[in-house]
């Protein structure tokens, strides 16, 4: 504790030369001057430390005793500051740095957007910049409420906007409105979502293009959103200057198929470690290479492990540690029944995984065949289901603007 306080107060290392050194110490102590780390360097020589502020009193006491006191060194913060005072350019540089840091901290340097999904962040940033929030602007000048209001007005899709300025970074946090979009009112057709056979059509709006029993291909229109020319509605729309399209609606139930394919090995092989291990260490520096241990193990079947280390601070050095563990490979006898079951189960899982949630399974067809040349059993599972075949597709494509 004393060491720390002396560092702050500053102390001097003094040298006292003379005959009555003990008397000097006693006189100093009597005056309330503390001394520390006193060392008798010789019969008439004493080195000690004393607080810088106490030194004049000590020197006065010494004069009366005929002891010569001089300063060997000055230590502590006050002296560091005094020395720094002499190096004015250094201190000026430090002050300039602090000032610059302070000035730079008054600006917003980064603007980021948090929470934007469908609204592009660039659009939000552009509006924010118009409202006065852009990199390089004074923090004080940023009017959060103004920026928030402008964002609300310019981008109606934003349900909530908050501007948060922290240090040099400003964050525009937004929450977007969840809207059904213009899609619900867009005209369009109902098309087949996959290949199948139509069983039943329930028409709500539009014109049916297929009949039960018909085979349809994926993407084929099932219910048209285009009004038939000549119909009353068509004429009415054209007379009003509108396009003769409506939003087709209805369900198309049909049968379709899902297929899963899988294979399983007829015989399984397994590896067991015998416990024999062979190691090799290779150290290479540039072209030079030192190998410890032979590169090939004294056994045939091995599983290799490799560690490589090449430190970035020593280009060209590479240490490689190769470990070979002997394994015994055992081949289980072929088991066609188990392999078939495995292949079949996998194929079925694969087929079932593709089914939509509301599908009604009607039938399942299974075929299993051995491929002895490849040593595997293959299985195919086809599941026939009844499901909704139709899918709405707006006119002009799903990515187009409002029609």
């Amino acid at each position, binding site marked *: 504790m*004393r060491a720390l306080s002396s560092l702050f107060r500053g102390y001097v290392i003094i040298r006292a030369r003379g005959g009555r*050194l*003990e008397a000097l*110490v*006693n006189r100093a*102590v*009597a005056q*309330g001057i*503390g*001394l*520390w*780390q*006193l*060392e*008798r360097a010789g*019969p008439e020589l*004493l080195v*000690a430390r004393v607080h810088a502020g106490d030194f004049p009193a000590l020197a006065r006491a010494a004069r009366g005793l005929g002891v010569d006191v001089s300063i060997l060194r000055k230590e502590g913060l006050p002296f560091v500051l005094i020395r720094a005072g002499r190096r004015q350019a250094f201190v000026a540089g430090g002050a300039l740095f602090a000032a610059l840091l302070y000035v730079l901290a008054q600006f917003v340097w980064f603007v980021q957007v948090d929470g934007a999904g469908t609204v592009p962040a660039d659009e939000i940033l552009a509006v924010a910049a118009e409202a006065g929030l852009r990199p390089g602007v004074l923090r004080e000048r940023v009017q959060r409420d103004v920026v928030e209001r402008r964002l609300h007005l310019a981008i109606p899709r934003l349900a909530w906007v908050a501007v948060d300025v922290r240090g040099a970074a400003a964050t525009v946090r937004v929450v977007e409105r969840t809207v059904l979009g213009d899609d619900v009112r867009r005209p369009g057709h109902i098309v087949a979502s996959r290949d199948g056979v139509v069983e039943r059509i329930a028409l709500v709006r539009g014109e049916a293009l297929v009949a039960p029993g018909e085979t349809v291909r994926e993407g084929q229109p099932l219910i048209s959103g285009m009004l038939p020319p000549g119909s009353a509605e068509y004429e009415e729309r054209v007379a009003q200057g509108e396009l003769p399209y409506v939003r087709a609606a209805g369900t198309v139930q049909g049968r379709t198929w899902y297929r899963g394919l899988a294979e399983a090995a007829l015989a399984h092989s397994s590896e067991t470690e015998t416990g024999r291990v062979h190691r090799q260490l290779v150290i290479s520096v540039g072209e030079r290479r030192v190998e410890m241990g032979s590169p090939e193990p004294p056994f045939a079947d091995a599983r290799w492990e490799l560690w490589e280390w090449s430190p970035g601070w020593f280009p060209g050095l590479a240490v490689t540690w190769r470990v070979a563990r002997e394994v015994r490979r055992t081949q289980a006898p072929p088991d066609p029944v188990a392999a078939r079951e495995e292949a079949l189960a996998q194929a079925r899982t694969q087929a079932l995984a593709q089914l939509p949630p509301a599908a009604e399974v009607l039938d399942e067809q299974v075929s299993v065949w051995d491929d002895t040349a490849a040593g595997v059993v293959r299985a195919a599972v086809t599941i026939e289901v009844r499901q909704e075949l139709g899918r709405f597709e707006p006119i002009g494509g799903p990515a187009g603007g409002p029609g």
Partner: protein
Amino acid sequence: MEPERGTLVGRLVRALDLPLDIAFNLPKTTLIGDVQVLVENHQGLLHYSPREVRVRTARGELVVSGSRLRIGSILPQELVVDGRILQVQLRR
């Protein structure tokens, strides 16, 4: 002058279990291992050399002998001797 024993003040101090060094300004010497001696209530340094430090106290001269002795600090109430301590002796 024997203020500790017999006198009224001495008996009172003992009855109240007061620390004697504080009650009668007696020196208190603490020896830490063989590396440090702390003397409280000293009355001045009589002699200092790397082999011997003599300190005046209210009960005589306290002599610390050893080697490479150093005075760690000296304050009005407290004196610390560092170094290899061999002997602490009270001379009257």
